């Protein structure tokens, strides 16, 4: 397996405050990796640094090419979809417009129409609501829409920031099942940041644990799930 994303010595700053202290990690092509950590550990910052949404230093390579100083929109256009914390839904637009926006950097009109249909198959609830204002959807539906919008890019890599946040347990299960399916069937490499460590470790094949801006543990998701420290700190048993 080759590494799709290589991150070396990533340091990120909010003004004078340093949030990441030299993160090094990589994602294998086709893998589903989870990044675990407590509040404030730097999970969100890591995702934001990959998309150049925060000031950072270090080297990030995507499919062998350095991301460098590309603007956020140009990083996205490389094929990296980012579902931000809080979902970033265009609430005053319809569900269908949200999906079209996901594909705004593409110009293959026919394939876009076909992709929208495919999203409705993955997420039937969106089809029932396609003319509805996205802001009127429930939290779970909005999260589905956010994932569907990200997939409309036809990404090679998808970054998800706490997709389970604020959702009912049953809906979270459903969402994670779909993420697994997308990872397997559409060959999208996924990096998911989660507070719900148990579920994330069940789903993922790789895991990293981060504490105060440093990676403290990495490896196979199953091994991490069985690690005593992780069990005590993140799984609570």
């Amino acid at each position, binding site marked *: 397996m080759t590494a799709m994303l290589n991150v070396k010595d990533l340091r990120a700053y909010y003004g004078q405050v340093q949030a990441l202290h030299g993160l090094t990690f990589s994602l294998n092509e086709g893998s589903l990796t989870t990044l675990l950590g407590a509040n404030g550990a730097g999970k969100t910052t890591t995702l934001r640094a990959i*998309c150049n*949404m925060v000031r950072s230093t270090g080297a990030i390579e995507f499919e062998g090419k350095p991301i460098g100083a590309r*603007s*956020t*929109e*140009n990083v*996205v*256009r490389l094929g990296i*979809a*980012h579902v*931000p914390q809080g979902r*970033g*839904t*265009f609430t*005053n*637009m319809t569900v269908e*417009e949200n999906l*079209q*926006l*996901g594909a*705004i*950097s593409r110009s293959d009109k026919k394939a876009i129409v076909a992709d929208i249909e495919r999203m409705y198959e993955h997420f039937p609830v969106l089809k029932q609501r396609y003319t509805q204002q996205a802001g009127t959807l429930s939290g779970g539906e909005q999260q589905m829409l956010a994932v569907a*919008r990200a997939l409309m*890019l036809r990404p090679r890599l998808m970054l998800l920031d706490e997709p389970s946040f604020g959702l009912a347990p049953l809906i979270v299960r459903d969402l994670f099942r779909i993420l697994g399916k997308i990872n397997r069937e559409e060959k999208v490499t996924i990096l998911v940041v989660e507070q719900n460590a148990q579920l994330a470790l069940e789903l993922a094949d790789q895991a990293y644990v981060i504490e105060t801006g440093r990676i403290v543990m990495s490896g196979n998701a199953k091994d991490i799930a069985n690690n005593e420290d992780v069990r005590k700190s993140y799984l609570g048993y």
Partner: protein
Amino acid sequence: MELFANQVLAGIATGAIYACMALAVVMIYQAIDHLNFAQGEMAMFSTFISWQLMQWGVPYWGAFVLTVAFSFAAGIVIERLLFKPLAKAPVLTNVAGFIALYAIINSVAGLIWDFTIKQYPTPFGSSPFLGSQLISTHQAGMIGITLLMLVLLFFFFRFTRVGLAMRAAASLPESARLVGINTSWMIALGWGMAAAIGSIAGMMIAPVVFLEPNMMLGVLIYGFAAAVLGGLSSPFGAVVGGFLVGIFENLVGTYIPGVGNELKLPIALALIVTVLVVKPAGLFGRAIVKRV
């Protein structure tokens, strides 16, 4: 009764111009959260360009199209040179930028074309419209052109990809970047379109107020009143506000004794203050709620 109908129709005609100015102001406000005080001067300068072209023998509609294209390009240039560098600057810095732009355009126009009042032609003539004394052909033309432009804008924003991208960039810049939209260029495009809309307003109102460097001052204040009344966050509201303010202005001027032409401008300002006190979000705007 005839006087009333006459005043309402005349109000709709000037209201069309206020609607254009309000729309231009709202488009820029949506993109960068600042009011463009120089919107009127930009429109005035465009109108002088069209006048100059006609002086050089270009026919009216040729000059009209060239001017709209020039204004679009000039709007983009102004954004790139002046306001893109100010994007992260404090509000007051931006306000100073707008006032500087106002003063510069106003004096340059005075320098090139001097401050004497000039006649400006109308392509519609000024005979009674359809034989009726209620409204002139020029007023009808003003309404017609404005409505046509509004319909085109509606289709642009509703059904084209660029329109969709511009709406996304204005409503949630960060999310827009995350789907690959170059939000910086969307702002520039918004400036270009606002300048183009303003130039149409300028060319339509010039036969009424005559052409001179200060011709848009009153019009812009009414445009602001319209934008505030309709709600600064709603382009649709700005247009409705424009027509309402136009009608209101005429009716007050006609029926309230002592107002006349001299007091019309303070009335626009009184309207702005009243709306801001009573219903700050305007008729169609959404109240801004911030979590702290």
